């Protein structure tokens, strides 16, 4: 099979995202012998810096360079890529906010299969790619077969494939701008305006050493009081998972996760948090993770160092008392 695997490169301020290296590993697992080509879209010196960095890891980089692409607008890029990507190719894109914006529609425009949020690959079976996905926020996994014979767009969960750090290449950068823009700039029906930065809250949880993080298991806004008391007793700060912010019980600035804050505490106490990858994606710096959840099958227990199977509404007051006791 003479298929090429293309990887879509995320980059910002001239620096390439870690996923650029993870996609190499994913590509090797999908088709070990296929050529892998990076696609980098952007403009000017920032794109050039990204391409330079990429050339150490990729034998070939295709770039599309235009001022109109200085901010990655998926609507435009979805129109450009089919003009340069050959029919039948495999396209790998990180499964994060940009990839989710770009990819489902890209598969339609390329007329390929679409495999979202893959976490592993297990070779070919009956001529089809066998992959692993998760459903129900990671509570169960599935094997799926994806027909890639006519090409495929596959989004790859960030952080699950080991980054290929070999940097043994001295790749060539191929300028595809003319081909991509020959028919003009597509996607004008969606026009980027600005990025509104997140509001800074009263407490900067990204600097906290001890985080007491609360999730859906708290059930009621009034119950947050017991979490505050525990945090105060332990000398830590309170953070939360997405449902608490959605319910408007806490400020967005307290939310841990890929769509919230990235935290680097020493100790992370997760209370009634199921532990979706979007949430744990915001917990960095290898903290000691303690999980309390009444569901013994909650995914959080796969990522925690220590777990307690308990109803947090009963457990939190008892833990608070115990900590008070030893502090005297």
């Amino acid at each position, binding site marked *: 099979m003479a298929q090429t695997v293309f990887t879509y490169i995320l980059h910002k301020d001239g620096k390439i995202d870690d996923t650029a290296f993870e996609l190499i590993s994913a590509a090797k697992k999908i088709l070990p012998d296929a050529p892998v080509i990076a696609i980098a879209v952007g403009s000017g010196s920032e794109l050039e810096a990204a391409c330079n960095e990429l050339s150490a890891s990729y034998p070939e980089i295709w770039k599309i360079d235009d001022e109109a692409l200085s901010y990655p607008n998926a*609507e435009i890029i979805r129109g450009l890529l089919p003009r340069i990507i050959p029919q039948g190719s495999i396209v790998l894109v990180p499964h*994060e*906010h940009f990839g*989710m*914006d770009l*990819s*489902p*529609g890209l*598969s*339609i425009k390329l007329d390929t*299969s679409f495999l*979202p*949020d893959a976490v592993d690959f297990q070779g070919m079976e009956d001529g089809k790619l*066998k992959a*692993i996905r*998760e*459903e*129900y*926020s990671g*509570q*169960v*996994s*599935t*094997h799926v077969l*994806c*027909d890639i014979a006519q090409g495929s767009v596959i989004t790859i969960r960030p952080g699950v494939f080991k980054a290929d750090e070999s940097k043994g290449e001295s790749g060539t950068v191929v300028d595809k701008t003319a081909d991509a823009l020959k028919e003009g700039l597509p996607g004008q*029906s*969606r026009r*980027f*305006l600005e*990025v*509104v930065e*997140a509001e800074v809250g009263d407490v900067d949880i990204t600097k906290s050493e*001890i985080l007491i993080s609360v999730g859906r298991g708290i059930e009621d806004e009034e119950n947050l009081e017991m979490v505050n008391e525990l945090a105060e007793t*332990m*000398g830590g700060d309170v953070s939360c998972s997405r449902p608490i912010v959605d319910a*408007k019980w806490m400020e*967005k600035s307290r939310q841990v996760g890929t*769509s919230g*804050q*990235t935290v680097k505490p*020493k*100790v992370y*106490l997760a209370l009634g948090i199921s532990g979706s990858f979007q949430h744990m994606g915001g917990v960095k710096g290898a903290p*000691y993770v*303690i*999980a309390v959840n009444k569901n013994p*099958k909650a995914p959080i*227990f*796969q990522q*925690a*160092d*220590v*777990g*307690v199977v308990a109803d947090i509404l009963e457990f939190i007051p*008892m*833990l608070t008392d*115990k*900590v008070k006791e*030893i502090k005297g």
Partner: protein
Amino acid sequence: MEILVCVKRVPDTAENEIEVNKDGTDIERDDLVYSVNEWDNYAAEEAIQIRDNVGGTVTVLSVGGEDAEEVVRREMAMGADQGILLSDEAFTGSDGRGISEIIKAEVEKGKYDLILTGAQADDGAGQIGGMLAALLDWPYASLVNLIEIIDESKIKVGREIAGGNQEMSEIDLPCVLSIQTGINEPRYVGIRGIRKVASMEIPVHGTGDLSLSPDVIGKSGAKVKRLDYFVHDPGEGADILEGSIDEILDKLVEILKTKGGIK
């Protein structure tokens, strides 16, 4: 503004622990509580608020079996004007592309300015909105957490991106948006509300009503097929503290002390 909202009936993960059945062919469906997919409920609320502000009609659509009618009716009780159920044996086993083709066929029978879907559902794919938009050749924005109507031809949308930041864009109508949770506060729907719409008719459309090519829908048209369900081997996983509650508390506090969890 004519708004279409696509909703899905899913097992309620807040109410259920999802487990794999004995032979791994499905999740254990006995005693499951079903509800409208959480993201879709925010989409329906948003559509209703837009209609209340600028006028128009909200239509709720679901692809599924007869059971899917209950979630359509629930969103009508919430305030949607009408519902459509897309249901046919031939739809069973469709992949994301197949479902999107089915919805597209229905969309082309009507005249919509705005289509809202949830950002994702139970399978975490987040694919229907983007595929539908591409099939219709309409612009698309995902993970939308803000909508402002500018005029009849364009709207302003905010997308939730990394770090709690928000990406603002202007987008022409008609368009498709996938809605992120937290965009609004969905209203409560009581039993009385459901009763009020109990007698409203929800038309059911199948292959015969929609012009659909059989090679993209159903099991035979699917390029992506689920083989089985399994529980991922957690490997090491957490060290689960055992014993009486006092013993657990003692151990936990000891751990907190050594790891710097108590100041």
